[in-house]
């Protein structure tokens, strides 16, 4: 039990050091990268990783680091005895972080202020905790621990040797203990090395994939997937080009879509036209390879759009004429659906099967 306890302490200390190094390296890289790329615009700087990460990925990473730091650094609740300047800095940074987090989740607009307030209060105390963790962090503590344990191990080994020398192996329990602890210790080390290697490999692969995506003509996302006529749809992706000469087209099987509100290099907003058929239809982009009129036409990938009948959301005339119009069950259901799909914009959460 004692061995396991000490091993747990070891792993906790190792984890602390790993998180400490990762967070320091990442934050330093991020800060220097941003300052460098804003000031020295003409000097090419390989900040591929930071620039290729989307805000969402950055936020997930931030969540991970903040969470682990919060758990590891938690010893006792830090009392906020702060000077005026410190307080202002903490408030600013917690507000900025909470804004970043809330903005990147697609929360409904009504809860925006409330969520920012809530998250910034939580983050304020978490940041206090984290500064306490970094401030009181002692790298040499692990060395002390190892040296203490070493002495114990040496004593055990000397006992063992002594017993062997006497030709009497009185206590095999010591051998079992030593072997057991060695196995656990080596397996922990192998696991940590293997896991961290795997994570680094996967992250690298993911960044390569993301960089590849950024270079190709591709639609990555359609929001929302399930919708009805005359609603706005957002297409996100890369290299759509700037539609200056109206040569680029947004195509479906039923013809081109003309009611386009916004066309930028990585976002298109359009209104679902009435000439599309109900049900599933594919959407893709077509653009000429260059400006000449005889150039080849490039096609992007196809994304699926599910158009639901408008009677699923709005009442029909017969329903409308009914004197009990507001309290009919169907109409209430429709109202809830409208709220869910068009106000909260959470229609994609349900896997909507069409009748």
């Amino acid at each position, binding site marked *: 039990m004692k061995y396991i306890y000490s091993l747990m302490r070891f792993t906790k200390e190792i984890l602390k050091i790993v998180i400490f190094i990762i967070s320091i390296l990442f*934050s*330093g890289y991020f*800060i220097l990268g941003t300052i460098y790329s*804003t*000031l020295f615009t003409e000097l090419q700087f390989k900040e591929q990783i930071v620039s290729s990460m989307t805000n969402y990925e950055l936020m997930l990473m931030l969540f991970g680091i903040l969470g682990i730091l919060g758990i590891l650094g938690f010893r006792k609740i830090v009392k906020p005895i702060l000077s005026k300047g410190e307080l202002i*800095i903490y408030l600013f940074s917690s507000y900025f972080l909470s804004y*970043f987090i809330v903005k990147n989740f697609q929360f409904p607009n009504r809860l925006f202020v409330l969520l920012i307030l809530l998250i910034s209060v939580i983050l304020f105390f978490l940041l206090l905790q984290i500064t306490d963790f970094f401030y009181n962090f002692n790298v040499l503590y692990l060395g002390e621990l190892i040296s203490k344990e070493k002495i114990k191990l040496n004593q055990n080994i000397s006992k063992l040797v002594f017993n062997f020398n006497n030709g009497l192996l009185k206590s095999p329990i010591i051998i079992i203990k030593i072997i057991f602890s060695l196995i656990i210790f080596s397996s922990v080390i192998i696991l940590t090395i293997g896991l961290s290697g795997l994570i680094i490999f996967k992250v690298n692969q993911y960044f390569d994939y993301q960089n590849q995506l950024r270079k190709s003509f591709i639609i990555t996302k359609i929001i929302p997937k399930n919708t009805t006529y005359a609603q706005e749809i957002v297409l996100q992706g890369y290299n759509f080009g700037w539609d200056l000469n109206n040569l680029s087209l947004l195509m479906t099987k039923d013809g081109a879509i003309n009611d386009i509100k916004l066309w930028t290099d990585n976002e298109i907003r359009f209104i679902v036209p009435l000439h599309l058929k109900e049900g599933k239809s594919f959407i893709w982009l077509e653009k000429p390879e260059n400006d000449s009129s005889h150039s080849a036409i490039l096609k992007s990938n196809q994304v699926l759009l599910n158009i639901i009948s408008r009677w699923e959301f709005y009442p029909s005339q017969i329903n409308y004429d009914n004197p009990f119009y507001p309290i009919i069950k169907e109409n209430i259901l429709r109202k809830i659906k409208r709220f869910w799909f068009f106000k909260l914009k959470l229609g994609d959460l349900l896997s909507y099967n069409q009748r």
Partner: protein
Amino acid sequence: MIPFKKKLIISIIYLVSVFLFLRTDLSFFKFLNSDPSTLLFFSILPLLIWLANSKIAIIGAIFFMVLTAIFDLSKFEKTSENLVIQSFFFFAYAVIISIKELTKER
């Protein structure tokens, strides 16, 4: 008196949060939306006020000015423009802070 290590940690946390914020939305700094270099200075401004010292600001300004000269000589015009904006703001800040310090002394 706050120890240096703690100051460093807090400023790193602040910088990370402000740069993350700058990636999402600029509504907070909408009044200076045009120029990234100005934006950078104003986003770091609370930190500067917290670590307020006229000496540091003047050293920063001179540092940026020297860099400006070097980059201007080697014809990186956009970069030198950015740097000269920084040095101007740092000088202005240093002057304001030094006036404040002088009035406090009296």
